[in-house]
């Protein structure tokens, strides 16, 4: 109402870097490894990076949704493990019961995703209705999922996924052998030793579709807007009539759903299920969200930037490996980048909400 009041001015450089430094960092990182690691800048290593990153990408999106509301979900890693186990157990049981293999795989996947909602619904109920802090609620759920998983597999690991699942999980969309046209889905029958170019892993395509849908939901729907409002100001959201408790329940359920999906992709890729399959991925997922610029206090963060954060980690991991540098150096670097990201988020502030900015 006072015309003379000014929006705080940012210097142009800081304003420019505010939303972009992570992307710039990623590019520099890739350029660095192009010189440092033999064979890093190839289609093949890009595919490897995406293929083995699938679970972290999915968990990072799960974590982002919860973080946007100002919460945190520590249980996603062990929900992944739980889902990897039960998907195999269910498929195995269905095949044993005489159902066809494709039908068993389909039914097992759907059943796992439905069961996979349960831990999230419990988390959401604890957080929204019983007001248990998200850290505590999901930390407890981590333990419960771990314990139940070990009980199901009796402390070893789950096996028995049919070969078809492994073919899907490790297959590609396109294949190209010399002197033959492109073939979809099926590896061409050629002499042993003939180089076959395999392009676009199936699992990566599936994950990409799901991630794009979640990006759309967060950015363009009323539901997504409500999550930002809840994270920005819980009071404002309540008073604006947003069904805050229902939204929080839904967000933990979605997180759990994505973690279960990641568990199913794990079972398809590795044809085994382990309780701790996703244990070490939790920290990567949280780190990706934070490097992507989301505040742990909620209200900020986008799927696109979270994916850039996840790629920063994936490139670092693969690049160091290919350069023959020990992996524990990676942990130190990840720690350093994480701190850098949080400092950058503080000193390179954005005048606009990332969502509005991206849409301009």
């Amino acid at each position, binding site marked *: *109402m*006072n*015309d003379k*009041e*000014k*929006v*705080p001015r940012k210097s142009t450089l800081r304003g420019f870097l505010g939303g972009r430094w992570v992307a710039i960092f990623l590019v520099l990182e890739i350029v660095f490894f192009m010189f440092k690691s033999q064979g890093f800048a190839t289609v093949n290593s890009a595919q490897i990076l995406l293929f083995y990153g699938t679970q972290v990408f999915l968990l990072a999106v799960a974590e982002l949704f919860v973080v946007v509301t100002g919460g945190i979900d520590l249980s996603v890693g062990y929900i992944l493990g739980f889902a990897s186990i039960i998907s195999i157990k269910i498929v195995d049981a269905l095949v044993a019961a005489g159902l066809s293999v494709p039908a068993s795989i389909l039914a097992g996947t759907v059943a796992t995703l439905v069961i996979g909602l349960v831990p999230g619904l419990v988390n959401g109920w604890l957080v929204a209705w019983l007001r248990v802090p998200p850290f505590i609620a999901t930390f407890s759920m981590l333990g419960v999922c771990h314990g139940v998983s070990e009980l199901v597999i009796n402390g070893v690991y789950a096996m028995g996924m049919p070969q078809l699942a492994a073919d899907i999980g490790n297959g590609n969309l396109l294949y190209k052998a010399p002197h033959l046209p492109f073939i979809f889905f099926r590896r061409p029958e050629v002499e042993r030793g003939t180089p076959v170019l395999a392009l676009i892993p199936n699992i990566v395509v599936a994950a990409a579709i799901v991630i794009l849908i979640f990006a*759309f939901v967060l950015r*363009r*729907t*009323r539901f*997504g*807007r*409500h999550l*930002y*409002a809840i*994270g*920005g*100001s819980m*009071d*404002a*959201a*309540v*008073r*604006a*009539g*947003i*069904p805050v408790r229902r939204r929080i329940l839904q967000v933990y359920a979605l997180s759990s759903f994505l973690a279960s999906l990641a568990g199913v992709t794990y079972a398809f890729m590795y044809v085994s299920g382990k309780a701790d399959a996703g244990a070490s991925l939790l920290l990567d997922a949280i780190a990706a969200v934070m490097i992507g610029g989301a505040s742990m206090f909620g*209200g*900020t963060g986008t799927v696109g930037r979270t994916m850039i954060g996840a790629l920063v980690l994936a490139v670092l991991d693969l690049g160091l490996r290919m350069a023959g540098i020990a992996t524990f150096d990676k942990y130190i670097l990840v720690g350093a980048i994480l701190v850098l990201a949080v400092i950058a988020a503080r000193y390179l502030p954005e*005048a*606009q*909400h990332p969502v*509005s*900015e991206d*849409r*301009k």
Partner: protein
Amino acid sequence: MNENASGYLLETREIVKRFGGLTAVDRVSVGVRPGEVLALVGDNGAGKSTLIKLISGVYKPDEGSLLVQGSDAHIESPRDALEAGIETIYQDLALAENLDVGANIFLGRERIKRRLGLFRVLDDAAMAEEAKSVLDRLDIRIPSLRSVIRTLSGGQRQAVAISRSIYWKAKVLVMDEPTAALGIAEQRKVLDLVRTLRDQGIGVIVISHQMYDVFEVADRIAVMRRGQLVGERLVRATDPDEIVGLIVGSETVTKR
């Protein structure tokens, strides 16, 4: 008998709210008529804020009822209150600081459009346009509607909060300390805005500590002390001394 003989747009009847052993609001009956400004005054902890939270659906009353235009309003949540035409502007304004002006005006009631006849997506363009028109109507200038609330001044934030209420065609507007955080010029503008709203037939309830504001803008004053309503006066039939006396509960200045 006419249920609404008093002509109140909104009234509380014997409303009670307890927090554990503390009775924050104790059998309060108070109302506001269309085109009237009711000032709600009282010392800190007198129960004013609790009362307006009851009115706006944030708290559920333990006893008593809330009537809109003479009939029971069944307000159980903030959404019910909004649907009954009761808009509340809190002291902290209740804006989502991470969202832009348009998003805040439409918070919880977002405009949507259909994409491909299937997906319901936010219609940000329409929301920004409507936000601009309501701000223009109130002669409020904000550098960019894409600015997030965090970057705006106190006065601009207050303006956004008021615009939001007006946009949604409030019947009753409740304002908690609307001028507390503002500079002099902005205070005057907010008081002008309150008078404009009253002239449009809206019932306005204002909580204020500023005796000047109260006498400047209110038609009637309700005084609360320790959760109870201790007096109601028409502004033209009282003076600041008497109101202060009622607020602090001093016998010597209580004349009536």
